[in-house]
């Protein structure tokens, strides 16, 4: 991948906001720098409030950086032309409610410079892609959240951009919708497009991203392969158990499990490597295992361990 040309270049971006009317400012981005290369799916990950959306807004020209420079295809993001080959899906997108799905896509196609002769074909194709052909004539105000998200994806792609920026694209979608969006993102990569994705969902990062940058507190803490980070993270499993006797509970705690609960029903958290042994103990004691849910440490924990590990 390293030989691929750079699509996005961010160098030392600083952003200060003024919270009120006073002179005091709050620094949201502390001189961040990273690169996105052509044809890759780049995950921009971090906990809420890390500055992911602010970075994306800087790249879209919606916010002016206090210092630093960002460019797309070599053009400064402050230039209108920098957005010619760019598609953008904001988090929880909103659209003109008085328009139908078809009308809104025609409007975006027009302002994006799609030639008049190609508009109808392009809009029909995108409506089909995102599964909105049958609802194309209905007003946006009648659309569900999931349908609005699909319109958002369609408008981002309406002018066949070379790079697509997605801010939490799975937000508000049901499992089927999430899978469809994942498939769409993979399809974009297979067509040679570059995808920049803001997300805090580790599963998506693991399944989709070629490279990631981890943003914590307005600073880039890691940039590189997501697998190196994720494989280093400690996996844990939650078990919900009924009819747990005190002796077995004491044994589990001796083996490092954390127990929460009252009466005979408990939620037990154990390290992934100890799951088999714990399950054996539970079966032996005739406790009823209601659920077993493997999970990773939270993003914050993962980021903190990443940062600690890098010191």
């Amino acid at each position, binding site marked *: 991948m390293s030989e691929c040309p750079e699509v996005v270049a961010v160098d030392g971006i600083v952003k200060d906001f003024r919270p009120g009317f006073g002179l005091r400012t709050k620094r949201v981005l502390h001189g961040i720098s990273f690169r996105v290369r052509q044809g890759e799916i780049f995950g921009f990950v971090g906990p809420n409030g890390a500055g992911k959306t602010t970075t994306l807004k800087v790249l879209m020209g*919606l916010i002016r950086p206090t210092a630093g420079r960002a460019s797309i295809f070599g053009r400064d993001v402050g230039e209108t*032309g920098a957005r010619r080959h760019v598609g*953008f899906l904001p988090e929880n997108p909103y659209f003109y409610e*008085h*328009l139908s799905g078809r009308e809104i896509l025609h409007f975006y196609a027009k302002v994006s410079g799609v030639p008049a002769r190609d508009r109808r074909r392009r809009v029909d194709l995108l409506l089909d892609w995102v599964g909105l052909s049958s609802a194309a004539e209905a007003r946006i105000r009648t659309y569900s959240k999931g349908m609005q998200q699909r319109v958002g994806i369609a*408008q981002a792609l309406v*002018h066949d951009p070379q790079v697509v920026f997605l801010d939490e694209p799975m937000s508000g979608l049901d499992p089927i919708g999430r899978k469809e969006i994942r498939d769409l993102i993979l399809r974009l990569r297979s067509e040679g497009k570059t995808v920049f994705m803001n997300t805090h969902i580790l599963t998506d990062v693991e399944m989709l991203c070629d490279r990631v940058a981890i943003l914590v507190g307005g600073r880039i803490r890691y940039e590189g392969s997501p697998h190196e980070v994720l494989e280093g993270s400690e996996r844990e499993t939650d078990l919900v158990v009924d009819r747990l006797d005190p002796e077995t509970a004491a044994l589990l705690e001796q083996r490092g499990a954390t127990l929460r609960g009252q009466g005979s029903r408990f939620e037990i958290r154990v390290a992934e490597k100890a799951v088999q042994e714990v399950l054996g103990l539970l079966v032996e004691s005739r406790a009823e295992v209601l659920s077993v849910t493997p999970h990773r440490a939270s993003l914050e924990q993962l980021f903190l361990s990443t940062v600690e590990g890098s010191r």
Partner: protein
Amino acid sequence: MSAGVVIAIAHNTVREAVRNKILYALLFFAVLMIGSGAVVSELSYVENQRILQDVGLAAIRLFGVAIAIFIGIQLVYREVDRRTVYTILSKPISRAEFLLGKFAGLTLTIWMQMVLMGAAFAAVSLAAGAPLGWPHLAFGLLIGAELALVVALSTLFSAFTTPMLAAFFTTGTWVLGQLTRELRDIGAASHVPSLQLATDAAFRVLPDLQSFDLATEAAHLLPVTASDLMLPLIYGLGYTTLVLIAAVAIFERRDFR
């Protein structure tokens, strides 16, 4: 600057306004007010037709200004509040194109409303046997220019403040714009140099909206010369352009958080 983009945004703005029911309610009241001129004129023994037209022309102007302010102040705010601005401005369009498109769309909407109010006024006048002529047309053209200026002012204020404050600033500027000549005359008559300076500065800076008012000429069918029409039109065009340049300059610097 792409004319196609400005036209696309203007077209969308007109379409949004045409599908807005509140606008129809305002238009209904405007037509009702114009029609009420016929009732009011019946209460007078003299100059019934002049009273009918006075009420009608005043209604067109006041409702026109009210609609211009009502829609204009929400121009930018709604786009930001509903976050539609994120997807629009992420397209390869400049903020100037966006703002000019919105301005053009709103101005066209208000002119369409004026044509409807004018048609209602003409129908009421003809029904009452009141004369119509060139001064009425000149009145309409100048009110059109004044309303474009009011939309530009509300665009300017809505580019950096809330709808409430934008309404306050726009209405205040419109009211002061009706009084700049009187203010200047008061200042001149006061013989106080500082007051003269202040009122003269206000006259030069604030829009002279009285120059757009040909209601008296229209109601009395007084002669209206080409310069009576052209000079205010040129003045309005220049002032509107300056206000829009200021609005774009402010809008360009704005962060959409």
